[in-house]
């Protein structure tokens, strides 16, 4: 024991037994601290779904396309402004809703799916992502789809659906048995899929309606919170989809159409807030709210310009739906935090990868944004 006593610098009176006990106690404290850290970091629960595993699954079904978003990979940058009507100010203290306020907006239109060079198809889900830059550094970022409800309720169901809907290499179509098993296990998804299938598909990005999908809590200056789902409704008339034959050989027909329209005139959408009532589901994006809910017209989004993805523009922005200004807060929808985490993981991966040009190459249009 004298060696141990010398090594540790224990006082001469301390017995070897006491010394060993105390050394063990110190070891236990250190092991406990390291163990707590490992527990927090998820090393002790390897089966749990993590942001990295969600993105791994997207890469598994779509293939790896370095430098691109892992979902909604094919897109085009847009720019414009949002002019508030003032009617939203009673629901949210966020400055973007103050009457007369005009906020510069940059955004991105895209097609769902993780394949950046896929040909445009009219049934592919279309998305609109926006970034509002408020005074004093605040921002509102949002990512919306042209579907009235989301196909799944949880991130676990999202990854299960990706696998179930994966095209079979032999047929090019999803395995019907796997799809059937997925919908049997997720009846809420079967109901949502029927609503999504029944939606009216319009001619293009310009006349699509984009839905927030998830609910948010709008917080007024007096602290009152209201559950809100929102949608951007096109101001112009919506034309029916043209069908595959009419689209011709242009693989970017939807994006090219949008640019051609923007070259002629700015495009406008009204931001319509739908106010939830007690009992309306805020934690289930697969369920619509009753059609008679009060709505508020919060203002007009005007898109005036477009440009291909490039360094420094929408390509390098993460449209995380939980980048919110004071006055808009997340609801209890589990998809919101999961989207935020998965988008962040996708952004971190692509940020460090070499970039390739987007399939959508158009001559930029820069309208007078303000």
């Amino acid at each position, binding site marked *: 024991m004298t060696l141990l006593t010398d090594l540790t610098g224990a006082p001469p009176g301390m017995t070897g037994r006491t010394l060993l006990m105390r050394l063990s106690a110190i070891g236990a404290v250190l092991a406990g601290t390291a163990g707590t850290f490992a527990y927090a*970091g998820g090393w002790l629960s390897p089966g749990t779904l993590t942001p990295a595993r969600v993105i791994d699954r997207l890469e598994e079904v779509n293939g790896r396309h370095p430098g691109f978003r892992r979902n909604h990979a094919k897109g085009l940058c847009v720019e414009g402004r949002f002019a508030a009507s003032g009617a939203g100010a009673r629901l949210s203290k966020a400055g973007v809703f103050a009457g007369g306020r005009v906020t510069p907006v940059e955004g991105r239109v895209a097609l769902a799916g993780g394949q950046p060079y896929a040909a445009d198809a009219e049934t592919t889900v279309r998305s609109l992502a926006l970034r509002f830059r408020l005074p004093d550094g605040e921002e509102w970022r949002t990512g919306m789809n042209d579907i009235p409800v989301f196909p799944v309720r949880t991130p676990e169901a999202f990854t299960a659906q990706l696998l179930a809907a994966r095209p079979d290499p032999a047929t090019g179509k999803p395995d019907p048995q796997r799809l059937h098993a997925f919908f049997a296990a997720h009846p809420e998804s079967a109901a949502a899929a029927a609503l999504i299938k029944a939606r009216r598909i319009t001619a293009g990005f310009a006349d699509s309606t984009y839905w927030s999908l998830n609910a948010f809590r709008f917080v007024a200056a007096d602290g009152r919170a209201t559950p809100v789902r929102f949608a951007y409704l096109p101001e112009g008339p919506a034309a029916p989809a043209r069908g595959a034959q009419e689209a011709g050989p242009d693989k970017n027909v939807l994006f090219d159409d949008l640019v051609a329209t923007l070259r002629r005139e700015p495009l406008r959408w009204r931001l319509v807030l739908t106010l939830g009532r007690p009992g309306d589901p805020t934690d289930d994006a697969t369920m619509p709210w009753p059609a008679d809910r009060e709505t508020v017209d919060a203002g007009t989004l005007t898109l005036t310009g477009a440009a291909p993805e490039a360094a420094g523009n929408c390509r390098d922005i993460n449209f995380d739906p939980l980048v919110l200004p004071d006055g808009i807060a997340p609801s209890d929808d589990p998809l919101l935090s999961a989207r935020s985490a998965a988008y962040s993981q996708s952004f971190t991966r692509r940020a460090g990868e070499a970039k390739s040009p987007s399939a959508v190459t158009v001559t930029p249009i820069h309208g007078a944004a303000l």
Partner: protein
Amino acid sequence: MTRPPRFTLPARLLHWSMAVLILAMLLIGAAMVTSLGDYHALIALHRPLGILILALALLRLAYRRSHAPPPLPADLPLWQRRAAHASHVALYGLMLALPLVGWAMLSAARYPVALVGPLVLPPILPGSPMLYAGLRLLHTVLAYALFGVILAHLGAALMHGLIRRDGVFASMAPWRPRAERPRA
């Protein structure tokens, strides 16, 4: 009987409040990168806590310059003195570097560095995805390094308190332990 020298009350308050904050911060950081459901709540806590730790670390460094810590015992072996000095340089360096790297990486990614309510810090770097990717990795590496140095610091403190019983642990203990031999 002369009492062994201790850290001053403000120094002890700073030490123990930061100990709690930094350990909480490391656990939050480890949990949030693997969590889907709690990601948003944890990251919303992570940003303001990080900036608080940065402010406290600067305050503590300034305080330490005007209030020297009590000397180490004269009989402490030279290698242990050197290790103690090096680990404290590392602790201060990492306490300052981790929040700064976090702030810089969010700036490079063009995320608003939102703290509480409408309060958003300005960016300290221009937007650059590659810069973000590098800083994001550095943030993780430095966090593991800080956790390692904290484990070594905790182990050494317990060695002083339970085995050497030389007054070093008592000098920072929040209470005044009895029956430690006076420092030489």
